[in-house]
């Protein structure tokens, strides 16, 4: 088990390197001189050269990249140009807000998707199946932010059940988490359904049926456990989608999270903050995938052999 986990971690190294190269290039590919972001255009060339030297921008790009990675490893994400604070400090403040939203959405999504997916598979080609798959199709087709806006209008403005914006209590959390959770559940339910259908076809399910077990016992005791295995991998893959969704949903519900921080930073060209946000979000996604992979191997020992 440990060997498999270590192997997976080593496979991450090129991915992490690629990620740092992309994030590093952001500042250098952006149009204009990065110095312009720090000082106005009306400074003497000497001052510019000084600042260039101070930020190490006069050194070869490869050396700049190495020192960028070295700083990353120390947890130093640079300084925000606009807020005059270390980026790491800003992110540390925003990360819990996004994490809370992401985890709640994930829970909501699975609470909706797993029962619906299983029901649809067991009652395949019945009205139940068609109805749940049609609903899932509609859910899959909705942009998350639009669904969030509609929830906001209906439940916060018309019915006054929830606050319109802000952050703090579960009532602030519920609508944004529902927006991400439901759109995510639509896709997850389809995957649960096909995974369950796959299992129902297996020989051991036929054996369970033929030894006289009730349909309920077969589904609950034999099929369900095996159908849930691939869902674990799904859990890891959904993290990326949920993080992406939370970026926009945070804007809709004005939650002070990472997503809103990133979009604001992009619009005001505060590149160190954008870079820091990208590093943290992608690292979270990569770690989530790793965790899901390892968990998958724990519950399904066949994976390790591959």
């Amino acid at each position, binding site marked *: 088990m440990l060997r498999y986990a270590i192997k997976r971690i080593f496979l991450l190294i*090129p*991915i992490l390197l*690629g*990620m740092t190269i*992309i*994030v590093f290039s*952001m500042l250098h*590919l*952006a*149009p204009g001189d990065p110095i312009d972001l720090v000082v106005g255009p009306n400074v003497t060339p000497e001052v510019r050269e000084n600042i260039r030297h101070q930020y190490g921008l006069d050194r070869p790009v490869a050396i700049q990249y190495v020192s960028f990675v070295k700083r990353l490893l120390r947890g130093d994400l640079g300084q925000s140009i606009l807020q005059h604070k270390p980026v790491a400090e800003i992110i540390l403040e925003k990360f819990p807000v996004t994490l809370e939203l992401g985890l709640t959405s994930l829970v909501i999504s699975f609470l909706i998707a797993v029962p619906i997916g299983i029901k649809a598979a067991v009652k395949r080609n019945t009205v139940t199946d068609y109805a749940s798959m049609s609903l899932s*199709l*509609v859910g*899959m*087709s*909705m*942009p*998350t*932010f*639009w*669904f969030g*806006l*509609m929830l*906001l*209008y209906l439940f916060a*403005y018309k019915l006054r059940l929830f606050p319109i914006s802000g952050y703090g209590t579960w009532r602030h959390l519920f609508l944004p988490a529902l927006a991400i959770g439901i759109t995510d559940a639509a896709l997850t339910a389809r995957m649960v*359904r*096909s995974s369950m*259908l796959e299992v129902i076809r297996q020989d051991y399910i036929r054996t369970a049926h033929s030894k006289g077990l009730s349909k309920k016992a077969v589904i609950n005791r034999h099929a369900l456990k095996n159908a849930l295995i691939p869902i674990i991998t799904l859990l890891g893959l959904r993290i*990326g*989608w949920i*993080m*992406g*969704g939370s*970026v*926009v949903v945070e*804007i*809709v519900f004005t939650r002070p999270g990472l997503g809103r921080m*990133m*979009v604001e930073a*992009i*619009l005001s*060209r505060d*590149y160190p903050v*954008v870079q820091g946000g*990208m590093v943290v*979000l*992608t690292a979270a*996604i*990569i770690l989530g*995938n790793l965790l899901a992979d390892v968990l998958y191997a724990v519950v399904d020992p066949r994976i390790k052999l591959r």
Partner: protein
Amino acid sequence: MMEEVAQAVPDKSDSGFSEFKRRLFRNRAAIFGVIILSLMFLCAVFAPWLALSDYARQDLPSMLQAPSWGHPFGTDEFGRDIFSRIVYGARVSLVVGFLAVGISLAIGLLLGSLAGYFGGFVDHGICALIDIAWAFPMTLLAIAIIAILGPSLFNVCLAIAASSWAAFARIVRGQFLSLKSQEFVEAARILGFSDGRIILRHIFPNAIAPVVVLTTLEVPKAIIVEATLSFLGLGVQPPIPSWGSIMSSGRSFLFEAPWITLFPGLMIVLVVMGFNLFGDALRDSLDPRLRN
């Protein structure tokens, strides 16, 4: 006896394509999808005739009006007709959808076939690239790229393609891996054909089915990402109306004028649903084994 033999020999009307068409159009969901998509194309092509007024025409006295006969989808904060803006917005969604997926398709086909055909270190390198692209969530990567390139219609396409090419590369690579060891490819190699000819003329036509399916399922994703970017102010810039940018301005008036946000979103749901229905049916009829 003679009849049995005649049945065993496939005649022209029983060709693979007509069988495929028969299966596709027996599927009611597919027909529904095709109808939605055709309406959408007509809408985009005939926008100037369908629109009730110019998409940019301001009419301040009739601003923020609720839907009525004169303005079926209401008006926005400048009195512009939402229906007309949505009709024109269909152009942006379709152009971005197809251009972005076209770019990803080109990159994915090239890298996927190289990786699958040549294997070895070419394969390792390309697979690493695929894994990196997959590690970034589509929306976030697109936002980051727009941050570098600046917002414009073409840059939005590039930003979407930057993450969605990996799906194509992965599927093409898989197809090439399984096809290249088959006898007809071996035969072509023995005949002395060049790698380029084997890839293009022999493997490619056999690998195309899942790629077509993936294309129909990636276009709606691109449409949603475009709407998201435009909603954030990082997409198509005013005065060109895009469904995302209409919703972006509608957000400020959500409570007084919910129709500004409601209708463009409904259009997206409809169109994305059309593509998904069509794509699912296409997959079922091209590869019945995948049917669930």
